């Protein structure tokens, strides 16, 4: 009460004596500021702006922390599945090899990406690699087409490669990933797209902090025949007798399709794991940044608050001393 009375007194006299408090140097009376203005000349420095910023930054920090937890739990769920599925394509690779350097006329690049964002740079790296493969395999008589899984790659590739996109598939992760779903997908792709070699681009999950962009190559049966005849890595294929079916070609066709669906299944799972892991680390660094920002804002807030208290004190004291003197 007394303080308020003194303050009022000080207010009356402050403009006569020393209207410029020492700390309020940021603005001059001529230039309008966003600080609160009391009766003529007296300035209250507002902490409202800083307080609002602090509140919003704190909320953002809470949200990103929660997102990190969610991503961690989702990662745990998918990780076991992905590790189990690794055993699937290994026998195929042991038999048929993975030849990324094979030279074919019709390439199809299957880019696997996520639907949701906020997962770091994994989608951009997948797209960069897909474009790199496209450039690598361009030449006379050669054509490369894209098959896109996931919204993020679609957004990036539609911009400049629209005419080369054959198929776009999104909302893959609406239902938990299962082999049946992926085999239907693989079927669609094989039916609608002509290919000599399929190159699947995805992010392989090595650990929670490391995701390596990888390319798996699946060859069509004709190319397999061609490569095995010319010797080299697939040369031993001929030594295998093929049982059943009417012709060797038919069995090889089934084999290639099965291989494709197995490799796709693994690729989709690994990419899902990588997505969750990348999101975890992105959200983690985001919360840390928010924390740093909050610290800086708190310091500014305290400084502002103390400055306004000092201003008031000076006004009161100068008013009081004016009264006495």
């Amino acid at each position, binding site marked *: 009460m007394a303080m308020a009375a003194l303050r009022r007194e000080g207010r009356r006299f402050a403009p006569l004596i020393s209207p410029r408090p020492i700390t309020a140097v940021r603005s001059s009376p001529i230039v309008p500021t966003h600080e609160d203005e009391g009766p003529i000349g007296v300035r209250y420095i507002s902490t409202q702006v800083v307080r609002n910023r602090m509140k919003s930054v704190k909320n953002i920090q809470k949200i990103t922390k929660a997102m990190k937890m969610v991503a961690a739990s989702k990662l745990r769920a998918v990780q076991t599945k992905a590790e189990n599925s690794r055993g*699937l394509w290994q026998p195929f690779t042991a*038999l048929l090899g993975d030849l990324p350097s094979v030279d074919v006329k019709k390439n199809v690049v299957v880019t696997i990406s996520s639907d949701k964002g906020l997962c770091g740079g994994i989608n951009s790296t997948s797209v960069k690699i897909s474009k790199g493969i496209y450039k690598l395999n361009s030449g006379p008589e050669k054509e490369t087409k894209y098959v896109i899984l996931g919204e993020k790659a679609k957004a990036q590739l539609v911009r400049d490669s629209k005419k080369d996109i054959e198929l776009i598939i999104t909302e893959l992760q609406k239902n938990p990933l299962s082999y049946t779903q992926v085999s239907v997908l693989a079927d669609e792709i094989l039916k609608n797209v002509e290919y000599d070699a399929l190159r699947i681009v995805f992010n392989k999950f090595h650990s929670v902090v490391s995701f390596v962009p990888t390319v798996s190559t699946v060859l069509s049966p004709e190319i397999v025949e061609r490569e095995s005849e010319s010797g080299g890595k697939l040369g031993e294929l001929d030594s295998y007798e093929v*049982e059943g079916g009417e012709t060797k070609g038919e069995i090889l066709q089934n084999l290639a399709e099965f291989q494709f669906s197995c490799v796709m299944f693994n690729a989709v799972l690994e990419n899902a794991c990588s997505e969750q892991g990348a999101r975890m680390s992105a959200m983690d660094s985001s919360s840390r940044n928010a924390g740093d920002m909050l610290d800086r804002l708190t310091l500014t807030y305290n400084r502002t608050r103390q400055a306004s208290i000092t201003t008031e004190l000076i006004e009161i004291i100068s008013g009081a001393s004016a009264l006495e003197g």
Partner: protein
Amino acid sequence: MFLFLQPPLTRSHRTVRRGIVRRYEVDMVIVPATTGQMGVLPGHVATIAEFKPGVLSVHEGSETTKYFVSSGFVFIHANSFADIITVKAVPLDRINANLVQKRLVDFTQKLS
């Protein structure tokens, strides 16, 4: 399912569903190939065979374990290693015959 056949046969099983990778040495495997039941012993010639849904039996010494497998492939390599890859492999003792019959009837009805 992967089966590695090594003298004696070694097998490793791998399925799509569970990704069970089991690798062990066995004496003989009988696979339900499309051309009929095929017995695989160590020293079998290198083969790629497709198989239709059926019963896979693994003979290990005097024990026999039977699995029901959906379709898949078996690669028999020259060094007596065999890889069996299927979509599903269920040990026979986990299958309930009555339930299967009932479901079969249900699905046939739904199809027609």
